[in-house]
Every structure is written in C-alpha cells, then in structure tokens.
C-alpha cells in the first residue's frame, strides 16, 4: 500500500509518497512522477534519465538500505515545475558512505554488481547528493526545453 501527501497547503511544494520496501511497490512513485515530468514538457531523453535514476535510487533503498525487509518503508518526496525536478528517496536502513563504493567501471570490477546504480544516477542527473549518512539521496534534473 502506498500513502500520498501533498504539502501545498503548508507552502511546501513537495509531494510525498510512502511505499512498502519491495521492488514491485517501488514502481508506484515512478509512474506518478513520470506523468508530472511529461506534463511539464521534459523531453523523452530527460524522462529516460529521471526514470533510470529513480529506479536506481529505489533499488538501492530496497536492497541495500532496507535490506530486502518488506516491512520497512521508502519515502519519496518530489517537486516538479517547468524548470526542474527534485526528488529525495529515503530508506530506514543504517546508511552508508557513498565515497567508499568502488568505481564499477574499473577493469577489475566490470563484472561485479555493486556501485553501478550510483554511477548511473550521477551520470544521468544534474545533481546527486547523499544525506542523512547515506539514508537519503537527493536527485535533481533540469528541464532543457
């Protein structure tokens, strides 16, 4: 089950969606967010990038942050306008140090699964920041119309 809140009455432009920590439920906010970015005129290349980054953030939250514990929650907050989209994805895990994740493109790590998602988020979004000791990731993409 997902829960939605809109904070527009309090002046907060971010919408909030909270979902159970499974890969299936993690798709719920994605569908909603992509409808909004298309409404605001983001090009298909940007839609691809946002979808990719969001999937990587949600996958990391489910698998690494919440340790595949479906009783835990993932909280997605997002704000989109004609200029940009901002998204935060928060999990209930112990956090991590992103600087300790090795480069997945080095020759000796190409066939290993770890780190590729973080690298893709950084490659496809305009800004990626880890907050709350790695339990929250902030993603931003500008709308280049």
């Amino acid at each position: 089950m997902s829960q939605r809140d809109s904070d527009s009455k309090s002046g907060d432009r971010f919408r909030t969606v909270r979902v159970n920590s499974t890969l299936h439920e993690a798709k719920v906010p994605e569908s909603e967010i992509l409808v909004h970015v298309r409404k605001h005129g983001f090009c298909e290349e940007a839609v691809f990038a946002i979808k990719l980054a969001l999937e990587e953030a949600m996958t990391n939250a489910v698998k690494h942050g919440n340790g595949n514990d479906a009783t835990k929650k993932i909280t997605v907050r997002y704000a989109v306008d004609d200029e940009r989209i901002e998204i935060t994805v928060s999990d209930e895990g112990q956090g991590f140090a992103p600087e300790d994740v090795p480069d997945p493109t080095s020759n000796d790590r190409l066939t290993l699964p770890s780190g590729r998602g973080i690298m893709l988020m950084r490659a496809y979004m305009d800004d990626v920041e880890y907050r709350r000791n790695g339990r929250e990731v902030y993603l931003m993409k500008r709308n280049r119309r």
Partner: protein
Amino acid sequence: MSKTDALSVEVVKHDDGVVVSLVGSASMDLCERLNAALLDVCQTKPRVLVIDLARLDFICSLGLGCIVVAYLRVTKHGGKLMLANPQPTINDMLTTTKLGGLMPVCSSIEEALARR
C-alpha cells in the same frame, strides 16, 4: 519509451547460436524474470549467445547485471556473448558503464552471429 512497463523475452535457436530478443522495458521489478530466462538459455551452453536489444527501450542496473551474469556463464563454458542493435539510449548506457567494452556490441544479429 513506453509509459507502462512490460518485458518479453523471445528465444530463437539458429545453427550458429541462440538469439535472445528483449522486448519492452527491463525495469527493476521485471529483472527477476529476465534473469530466469537468461539462466534457462545459458544452461544449454550455447557457443554463441546474441542478445538483441533493438526493441528494448529501457534497462536499469539490475537488468545490466542480469546480462553480465549471462556473459559470465556463457564464457565460462567457452562460449561468446554479443549484444546487437541497441537503441541510442541503451547504447549510451553501455558506454557509460563500460560494459560495451566487455561484451561486443554489433549493429545487427547477422553481424553478431558471423563474429562467432
């Protein structure tokens, strides 16, 4: 890119190898199925496995990981895995992740089968 995600995996056996066509979107909730389908093919120990990406419009890192696992399984038995026909967005991901340097990327299935 489609607005709803679905993935189908089509397998065709040729004299020269096996062609697996991925159709749709390899998003995070569908990769378990992708992994199972590729595992089934790898268990036949093909000499050449071509993964046709012409009709794949999205893939996440989990999906790329499934292809890498298939690459490791095929090469372990002396076979080859090649990618064919990636759309520009997918090709860009292969470049960004440097996986295009690990697995040859061909412009057609015929070219991939001929490079066995």
